């Protein structure tokens, strides 16, 4: 066996072991950052930007944010592909990530704390989470108290203001946010349907026409994007408020519609085209699960590509499809519990 060993079966040579030793220091080396011009320090100003951790409701844990001494804050995102490196002048940098600041509304981050602490009673901001340094820093230094009017009832007594979480206002506010996002998705012609598509196809005029009927796809995608900053239960409330059907339902409905069309139009839209479509969506899911965007680093989330967004149910197993098909036409269980 020893003579016959192929290259693949050979034990890895030493240099690799050295390599992994080096790797641990790599994260301490150079990083490439796209910093928003809004955060750039002015010429004369001697203050420093900071990276701070705050609770990120969408992730359920802390994430890094860039903060400006004047009270601005932005989220720090990380763009990563599995195989990327930088050459910086004559230097090699193995950290092939791009870090990027992205604007974020602190109200979205504060919402989590409001729901946790101010659901039953009104509280003043400096009384919420007094023993969590990062939370009270967020609420008192970065949050615009005015903006809380959108998600809470404000009661003032003298100089002090007290806030009580208001679900109705919050959902309306989130719905408006969702519409803003949906509008920009449409403007940028970001493809939001459930099947993956080649970029050339996305830019074609045919699709632009088709998009008109895909209002719900945009809303669903926008909802998912907003949902990345929400607690899971609040996200569910939001989809309910906006009447966004789950993706499984949508896929089944579209399929039925396509079948009807097919039976009408004869063999124009043969089953071949549909097969390709399905395969594409599988490929998208595989790509996603294989982690084209790995975020194993210590620094927060990666920017996922919009088409490989946060949709959870992209590919369906045969079983799920059958389930969804069976469920079609039956009453939703929720309909039995509605207030009459």
């Amino acid at each position, binding site marked *: 066996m020893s003579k016959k060993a192929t290259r693949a079966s050979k034990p890895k040579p030493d240099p690799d072991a050295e*390599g992994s030793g*080096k*790797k641990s*220091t790599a994260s301490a*080396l*150079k*990083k*490439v*950052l*796209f*910093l*928003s*011009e*809004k955060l*750039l*320090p002015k*010429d004369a*100003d*001697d*203050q*420093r*930007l*900071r*990276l*701070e*951790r705050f609770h990120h409701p969408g992730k359920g844990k802390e994430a*890094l944010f*860039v903060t400006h001494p004047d009270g601005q804050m932005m*989220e720090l995102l990380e763009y990563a592909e*599995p195989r*990327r490196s*930088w*050459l*910086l*002048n*004559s*230097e*090699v940098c*193995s950290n*092939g990530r791009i870090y*990027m600041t*992205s*604007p*974020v*509304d602190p109200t979205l981050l504060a919402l989590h704390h409001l729901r946790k602490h101010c659901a039953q009673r009104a509280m003043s901001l400096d009384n919420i989470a007094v023993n969590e340094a990062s939370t009270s820093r967020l609420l008192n230094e970065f949050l615009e108290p005015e903006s809380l009017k959108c998600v809470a009832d404000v009661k003032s007594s003298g100089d002090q203001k007290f806030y009580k979480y208001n679900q109705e206002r919050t959902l309306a*506010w989130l719905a408006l*946010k969702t519409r*803003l*996002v949906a*509008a*920009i998705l449409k403007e940028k012609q970001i493809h939001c349907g459930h099947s993956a598509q*080649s*970029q050339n196809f996305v*830019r074609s005029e045919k699709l632009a026409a088709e998009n008109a009927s895909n209002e719900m796809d945009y809303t669903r995608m926008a909802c998912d994007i907003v949902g990345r*900053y929400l607690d899971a239960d609040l996200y569910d409330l939001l989809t309910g408020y906006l009447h966004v059907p789950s993706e499984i339902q949508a896929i089944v409905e579209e399929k039925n519609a396509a079948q009807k069309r097919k039976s009408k139009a004869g063999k124009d839209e043969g089953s071949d085209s549909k097969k390709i479509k399905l395969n594409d969506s599988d490929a998208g899911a595989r790509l996603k699960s294989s982690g*084209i*965007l790995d975020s194993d680093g210590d620094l927060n989330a990666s*920017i996922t*590509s*919009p088409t490989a967004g946060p949709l959870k149910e992209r590919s369906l197993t045969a079983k799920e499809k059958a389930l969804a098909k069976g469920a079609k036409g039956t009453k939703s269980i929720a309909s039995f519990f509605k207030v009459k």
Partner: protein
Amino acid sequence: MSITLDFSGKNLAKSKSVNLHYLPAKIDGDGEANVEEYFNNYTREATDLVPEGYRGLVIQETEKPINESSDRQLRLTGVFEEFTYWNYDKVPSNGDTYRQALLLADVADALSKPISEQDLEAEIARNKENTKESP
């Protein structure tokens, strides 16, 4: 623990421009290399600008933190306005994940826009109407 981006406006104005190549390969190593000698930058086709509204910075952590809770400092080593984006086997296009990820910056912009109180009141009223209509 706090992390400081340790540079002022003055540092930024004075810092040198860096020549960057974004390679489609994993290189297991860091540090100086004979890039001039072995890397042939034969095309300018792939030059990509830093997205609008952003400044490209190269930052570096000079000292590795001793433990998680110690303060850290990231220093500025250079700035850039453009870089060369390489793909393994195709010309960079809007289909690249990198380009698509950048679209998310616009989305984040829209998401962080404040909502006026009138709009909010209108939305609440509209929602009430809707729920009344379809009991």
